[in-house]
């Protein structure tokens, strides 16, 4: 202590009249204020400019910072502080997981759906929400009991109804979410009660100055401001960088590729039916054999290869070939030929294809598409990559087939996709009409949050500005030989 310190201590002895009304520092005000703001920001959901992530992240750290100085008061506060720490870790893990494919993988691993009043949601999301919210309820419950503890220790009647009410309401919110009850008639009053309780908790800090504060000061490794900054920085880093690591899907290329040529009589037969020669030239023996027994052909979208199409989108040609078979008498082989020009195929990060069998009635059955991509690298080596289609339903509940992939980066010339599937008649004696939609999704930006597969975008039927979709529809017929008329439909 130097002479100037002595002066300040001595000068402070003579408190001026204008400061005579000075209230003593209330050690509760700041922690309780932080807790109230934390709870408020955690609960507020503003789906705008990333506020749905930022506000809860700030709220989480404020709750933790508010409970940090209280943890030495009693066991309940220590419990609440531990819960707030676990809650923060779970929230951060959730935010980071959503930047990676892991979130989708976990949802797929658990698989099941949870049915609510407003629809079904993946069980994984329900379990995650329940876990995180339960930890929050425990933290608020700890806060409630901690406040009761300090009041009782000070020989005062506990006035902690607001904290208790908050713990009960937070638990009630979990139940409401599980049931899926929505609408302002229900949510409005609940929110009103919730706001009253938070305000009540904040006001509690003003009366808490009477219960004392036996804080044992301990050196803190980081200040509140720095902790908040680090926490937000961690979120921003995770959200900013992690998606870049998963911007492309793995390209499972195989080489040597394929051997065009083979069955010359079948080729000649298909050419005679009108099969586009350039597409036929690229088909391997196995692919060609699908058309064995062809007795008709209908093609749509065929052009000379120089047509204009949307940036990042392939040109699409669909070919329908009815063939004789022993089991059904006949069936139709459908081929969707997709062609990405070299300038387009190198510019995307993720592509997706959705095949929707549409307006089929009861007389047509469709097989899952069997698809492959073909291209050559800059050294002229040919590659193929099988596309794994999976059967699923879109958000409207329609059964369809989805495939997700990324186009190869090292290419010379176009990348071509060949999607084969078969339509089989349930009633072979009748002529059946069918429709198919082939929708292609394309993402050009390396960064996206949350991590979304093209099939998710296709299933949702709507997308943000980072995505483009293109839909190709065609119709055909299932008709036995002699009744097939490609011009009629």
């Amino acid at each position, binding site marked *: *202590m130097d*002479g*100037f*310190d*002595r*002066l*300040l*201590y*001595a*000068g*402070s*002895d*003579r*408190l*001026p009249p*204008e*400061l*005579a*009304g*000075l*209230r*003593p*520092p209330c*050690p509760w005000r*700041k922690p309780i204020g*932080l807790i109230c703001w934390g709870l408020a920001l955690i609960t507020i959901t503003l789906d705008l400019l990333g506020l749905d992530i930022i506000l809860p992240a700030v709220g989480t750290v404020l709750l933790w*910072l508010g409970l*940090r*100085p209280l943890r030495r008061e009693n066991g309940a506060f220590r419990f609440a502080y531990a819960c707030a720490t676990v809650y923060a870790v779970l929230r951060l893990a959730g935010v980071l997981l959503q930047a990676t494919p892991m979130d989708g993988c976990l949802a797929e691993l658990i698989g099941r759906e949870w049915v609510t009043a407003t629809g079904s949601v993946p069980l994984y999301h329900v379990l995650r929400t329940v876990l995180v919210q339960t930890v929050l309820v425990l933290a608020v419950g700890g806060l409630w009991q901690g406040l009761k503890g300090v009041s009782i220790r*000070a*020989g*005062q009647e506990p006035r902690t109804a607001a904290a208790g009410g908050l713990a009960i309401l937070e638990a009630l919110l979990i139940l409401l979410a599980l049931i899926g009850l929505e609408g302002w008639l229900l949510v409005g009053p609940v929110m009103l009660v919730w706001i009253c309780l938070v305000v009540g908790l904040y006001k509690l800090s003003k009366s808490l*100055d*009477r*219960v*004392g*504060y036996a*804080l044992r*000061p*301990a*050196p*803190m*490794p*980081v*200040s*509140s*401001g720095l902790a908040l900054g680090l926490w937000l920085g961690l979120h921003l880093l995770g959200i900013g960088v992690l998606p870049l690591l998963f911007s492309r899907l793995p390209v499972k290329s195989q080489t040597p590729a394929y051997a065009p040529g083979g069955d010359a009589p079948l080729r000649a037969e298909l050419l005679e039916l009108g099969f586009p020669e350039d597409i036929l030239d690229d088909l391997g023996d196995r692919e060609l054999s699908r058309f064995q027994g062809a007795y008709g052909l209908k093609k749509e979208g065929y052009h000379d290869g120089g047509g204009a199409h949307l940036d990042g989108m392939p040109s699409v040609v669909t070919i329908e070939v009815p063939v004789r078979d022993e089991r059904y008498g006949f069936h139709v082989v459908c081929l969707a030929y997709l062609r990405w020009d070299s300038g387009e195929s190198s510019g995307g990060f993720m592509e997706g294809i959705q095949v929707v069998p549409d307006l089929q009635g009861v007389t047509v059955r469709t097989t899952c598409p069997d698809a492959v991509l073909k291209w050559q690298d800059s050294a002229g080596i040919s590659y193929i990559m099988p596309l794994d289609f999976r059967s699923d339903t879109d958000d409207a509940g329609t059964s369809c087939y989805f495939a997700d992939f990324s186009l190869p980066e090292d290419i010379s010339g176009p990348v071509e996709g060949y999607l084969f599937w078969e339509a089989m008649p349930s009633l072979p004696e009748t002529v059946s009409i069918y429709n198919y939609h082939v929708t292609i999704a394309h993402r050009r930006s390396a960064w996206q949050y949350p991590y979304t597969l093209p099939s998710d975008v296709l299933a949702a039927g709507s997308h943000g500005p980072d995505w483009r979709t293109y839909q190709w529809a065609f119709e055909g017929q299932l008709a036995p030989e002699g009744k097939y008329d490609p011009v009629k439909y």
Partner: protein
Amino acid sequence: MEDARLIQALRTRQDGAMERFQTAYGPLIRYVIAPILDDERDREECLSDVLLRVWDSIGTFDPGRATLTTWLTHLTRNAALNRRRANERRREGGGLDEAMPDTGDGPEQSLLKAETARAMWAAVERLGRRDRELFLRKYYYYQSTGQIAAESGLTVRAVEGKLYRIRKRLRSELGGVSNGWI
């Protein structure tokens, strides 16, 4: 409303009024006393002393001028400081606490100190709200840097840094006044 009833009960010397007052305000009194007096026995004696003073002087309390909490805080702080000074004087073979003002000043010295205090408070008034609060915690309530840090959500180092900057600013603003004092 509750305070008003309590004050009225104390003024009319109702049974149990002092117990109720001690239950309500005992923790606050302890909070103010704790940083000023190190010894637990001293603290308990000081608490009793404060309660006695409240009992004696509740009639002079004017709710129009200050809240009960404010009045009580100042009363407690002054009682604790007086006890601390008395302890220092009694300490056999020990010097006075450097933080304590010298009570043996002459009229000229007292005038100079009053002038310095006025200048100091004027400078404190010009500080920002947070800096002013920090200053009061340190120099008025005698709180340790560790306690200030824990209650303000800062590190000890950050509090020391802030107090250093506050001292530097006050030293610069007080200028010749502080030099004259030293």
